[in-house]
């Protein structure tokens, strides 16, 4: 009886965490969940990530241009008026999508949908705003990634693994030749009906669809953005850097839709303990020296996946020892995995997938891309795919992965950091 109750309660919650229906409003995809939150959020998700960019850094520049002056209101007007309503505007960029988000109190949706849609339909892209406001933001984004070896290593790993398309960096090069005309042309090609999905949370779908129909109906209808299919290359590179921890990224990529097996593999390798301040039971944790850390990296994209381990430590020797342990664990997973380990890995991966939809950002990034692609955007569908994983399938996925050419990036003191072959790759 109790078990039955628990499972229904679970199902109810799961149903609330999904974009069950996707409405088509004036040719745009609109999906909303209302779980009775005290605030609402609306995200305009555009297929304008860095993989579609025409020039290095243009996608980042467009992200930083968000909420500047439009035909309806100036940049200052947007900020001041949003402050009066008590809303928060934000823009974020991934390799595939640009998300423009407004979070606000219930009842203010009319204004905030108008703010978001006026940027999409009538942004002015003035040269002086680009020079006065946007360029400093682009530069600070680039400086932030330069100061963070982990992000930097993952950026380089993408360039090595996928070269063009997904290989394009999320950040602009520090010496770039982006002009406001480039950004304008990129925005014009990206802001079309087939490229946009509007996602709401804490807002009624009908209300949102009506507002979207009113404000975004004028968006030009044209074909969706597309790039050539991703292929995986891999390779090795070493970059000198100062001031951060010594960092090594060991990764493998696959092409095709991301599979549940790889998510479970990443969960299996992840040494992150489930209990705070403990060491965890992962085979990697026992073997790494104090002060060094290993993180599992699992980055699924629409037509490729990058799975890897990010090793960081204070010295090159620490990183070498930890890296060896990490590679050993990866190879062991490829040769076979016990049923208990499989159970743990699947449960961990399931929790990670479910927990990602807990936050608003996570909900948009996990399910938004599915809404845009027209696939069923429910958490249940993604959780169900974990149920069919067998130990054989998991270790086969791992061994297929390891057979490929590794993507190996060392960032830090290149004299001391190990080479890929020294770690047993």
């Amino acid at each position: 009886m109790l078990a039955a109750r628990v499972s229904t309660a679970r199902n109810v919650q799961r149903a609330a965490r999904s974009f069950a229906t996707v409405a088509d409003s004036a040719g745009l995809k609109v999906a909303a969940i209302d779980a009775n939150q005290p605030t609402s959020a609306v995200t305009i998700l555009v297929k304008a990530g860095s993989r579609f960019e025409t020039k290095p850094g243009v996608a980042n520049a467009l992200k930083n241009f968000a909420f500047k002056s439009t035909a309806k209101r100036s940049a200052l007007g947007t900020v001041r008026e949003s402050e009066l309503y008590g809303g928060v505007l934000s823009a974020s960029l991934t390799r595939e999508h640009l998300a423009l988000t407004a979070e606000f109190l219930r009842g203010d949706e009319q204004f905030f949908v108008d703010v978001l849609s006026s940027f999409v339909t009538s942004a002015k892209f003035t040269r002086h705003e680009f020079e006065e406001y946007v360029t400093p933001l682009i530069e600070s984004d680039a400086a932030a990634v330069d100061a963070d070896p982990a992000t930097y290593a993952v950026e380089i790993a993408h360039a090595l693994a996928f070269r063009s398309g997904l290989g394009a960096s999320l950040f602009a090069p520090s010496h770039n030749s982006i002009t406001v005309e480039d950004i304008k042309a990129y925005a014009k090609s990206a802001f079309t009906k087939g490229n946009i999905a509007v996602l709401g949370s804490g807002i009624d779908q009908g209300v949102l669809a009506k507002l979207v129909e009113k404000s975004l109906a004028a968006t030009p209808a044209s074909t969706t953005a597309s790039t050539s299919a991703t292929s995986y290359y891999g390779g090795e590179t070493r970059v000198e850097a100062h001031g951060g921890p010594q960092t090594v990224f060991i990764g493998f990529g696959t092409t095709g839709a991301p599979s549940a097996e790889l998510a479970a593999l990443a969960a299996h390798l992840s040494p992150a303990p489930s209990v705070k301040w403990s060491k965890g039971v992962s085979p990697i944790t026992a073997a790494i020296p104090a002060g060094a850390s290993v993180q599992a990296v699992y980055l699924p994209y629409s037509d490729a996946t990058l799975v890897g381990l990010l090793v960081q430590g204070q010295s090159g020797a620490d990183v070498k020892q930890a890296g060896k342990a990490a590679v050993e664990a990866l190879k062991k997973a490829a040769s076979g995995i016990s049923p208990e380990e499989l159970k743990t890995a699947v449960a961990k991966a399931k929790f990670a997938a479910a927990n990602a939809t807990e936050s608003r950002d996570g909900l948009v990034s996990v399910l938004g891309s599915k809404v845009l692609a027209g696939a069923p955007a429910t958490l249940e569908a993604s959780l169900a795919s974990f149920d069919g994983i067998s130990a054989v399938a998991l270790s086969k996925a791992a061994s297929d992965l390891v057979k490929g050419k590794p993507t190996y990036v060392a960032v830090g003191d290149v004299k001391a950091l190990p080479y890929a072959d020294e770690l047993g790759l």
Partner: protein
Amino acid sequence: MVGPLSVSLASYVQSSRTLSRWIKPIANWYANASGYRQYGFKYDDLLVEERPDVQRALGRLTTREKYDRAFRLKRASQASVLHAPLPKEQWIKPEEDNRYLMPHVVEVAKEDAERQMWDTVKVKKN
């Protein structure tokens, strides 16, 4: 508008055909007679620039416009040192005397007015 652009009836005169037919020849004569073109200036080089708003407007010129402006100022300074106008082929022709700075000044003035408006806005609950 009171400011670097001063009080102007230009838009009123331009909107009336009769007025502009009468006044335009006088205006053209006046612009030539005031002599700044003979020193290689455009009218917008003469705007009072010691003001924060005009400084911001100057910052919005393209690199080429900034360079040309600096060149005209230097050339005129040299002419002033020599106590003589430039040779005639270097005079600014009336069709070259465009308002390259004014639109930026107007834009900046609008922004300042908007900031002023938001700084003093009264919010009413309805």
